[in-house]
């Protein structure tokens, strides 16, 4: 046997441990999946696999969108929709958080609040619609209430859950350093529940757009949903598609926004994802 053969088969320096973490972050990685879908859609349209009366080609959607922008219809309707979602979130998020706090910090609060929310969760949004219309009419108030009520549920559920899973040792610590109730909520409860709240936020923004569609398809005179409903009457698939793509983009970007906030706000965490 030669000396060379007795060398170790594997050079130790080049041997690497199996990496179990997902690896470094990909820049704008959240766009990869949607872009792949877009590519498939474009390919199917170009090869004629997809009938344009059934589904318009991506470039048709782009030119239609350009036309809509030129005529100003897109902006007006987009603004109306964004406004509804923003207002719905503005009412629903603080209310959901407040309810979660009261219910998480006091037994009586939980007894009174938790049940109704679980019931609300079990009732489909569409089932509440007739009642809301009767009470609030078909105006903006009804639409915003609808979104706020929808947003409230995931915010409540996840914030409440985050709050309840705060380690009791931290509560004991707060007791030993004589934290007042206000400081306890600011220093322990809110930051401890923040991961839960932000998860709830991610569901909430998606839910908000979902409820917007429902609200706008019925009795609206502005908004993306209205624009799409009108297009249905005239059989304009391209306009409908512009609406769908818009909803998709808005949902995607609001989720990305929340995730960005999440990464900044939870920088103290060392997790699998970091």
């Amino acid at each position, binding site marked *: 046997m030669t000396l060379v053969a007795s060398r170790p088969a594997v050079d130790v320096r080049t041997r690497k441990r199996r990496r179990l973490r997902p690896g470094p972050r990909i820049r704008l990685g959240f766009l990869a999946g949607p872009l792949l879908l877009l590519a498939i859609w474009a390919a199917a349209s170009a090869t004629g696999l997809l009938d344009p009366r059934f589904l318009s080609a991506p470039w048709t959607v782009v030119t239609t969108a350009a036309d809509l922008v030129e005529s100003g219809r897109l902006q007006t309707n987009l603004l109306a929709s964004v406004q509804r979602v923003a207002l719905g979130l503005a009412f629903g998020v603080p209310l959901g958080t407040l309810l979660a706090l009261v219910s998480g910090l006091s037994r009586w609060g939980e007894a009174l609040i938790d049940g109704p929310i679980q019931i609300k969760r079990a009732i489909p949004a569409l089932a509440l619609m007739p009642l809301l219309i009767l009470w609030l009419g078909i105006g903006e108030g009804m639409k915003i209430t609808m979104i706020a009520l929808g947003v409230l549920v995931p915010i409540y559920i996840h914030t409440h859950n985050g709050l309840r899973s705060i380690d009791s040792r*931290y509560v*004991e*610590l707060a007791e*030993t*350093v004589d934290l007042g109730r206000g400081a306890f909520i600011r220093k322990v409860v809110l930051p401890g529940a923040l991961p839960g709240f932000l998860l709830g936020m991610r569901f909430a923004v998606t839910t908000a757009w979902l409820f917007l569609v429902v609200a706008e398809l019925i009795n609206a005179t502005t908004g993306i949903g209205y624009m799409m409903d009108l297009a249905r009457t005239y059989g304009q698939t391209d306009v409908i598609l512009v609406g769908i793509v818009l909803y998709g983009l808005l949902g995607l970007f609001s989720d990305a926004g929340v995730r960005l906030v999440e990464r900044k706000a939870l920088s103290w965490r*060392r997790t699998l994802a970091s």
Partner: protein
Amino acid sequence: MATHAGELSRKEGVVVATHAGELSGKEGAGEPIRVKGLTRLYGERAVLDGLDLEIAPGEFVALLGQSGSGKSTLLRALAGLDGDVAGTGLVEVPEQVSVVFQDARLLPWQRVLDNVILGLDGAVERGRQSLAEVGLAGRERAWPNELSGGEQQRVALARSLVREPRLLLADEPFGALDALTRLKMHGLLRRLFEEHRPAVLLVTHDVDEAIALADRVLVLDHGRIAAEQRLDAARSATEVRSELLRALGVGEVPAGRRDGRPHRDG
């Protein structure tokens, strides 16, 4: 003096505690810590059974005892953290009591300095000084997760000392640290003690740690203080050590063996 005598369980069938009377005056730092007839029950079992204890101001006391003997129960009673445990007895402690736990128990979402001054308004400068005292100057803005176990425990020490406690309660504060770090922490704790002079009750399961740090070592057994050894010039550490081991029900162990296993031919 704050007294939490007569803290009673919400469970039924428990005797009402003796009342401390109007002891909660404004005595200075010169008042001893006093525990009389302290009983704590978990279910039917009395973990503490009429325990008496007195600690002089500025005295460093170590508490030894087998696992499950009730050391933490006693400490929690002194810290006023056992409102939900049944029992009777009198506990007199100073207003300002700090607790150091076995885990550093830092809020992971607060930076190191904010952890130190948790609940203290406008104490940033004092917090910085306190961190410098435990050798962590410059780490104020770090997240607790970024520190080693020993460093985290030093932050916990800084957090308890910045409150200028008259009584420092520590429940196996070095139990989770490696031997070398632990030795360094002994030096640090003793130095901080000399500077700040709180009364200290250090719970430990390590006889040598107790001897190295304390002025007086107690052994808790069957719910009471079963033995007591004062460390002074008159007696050698070896002597005290074997007395303590006997009280703990462990045979003679050669010095330097810290695991408490009995000697092969002892």
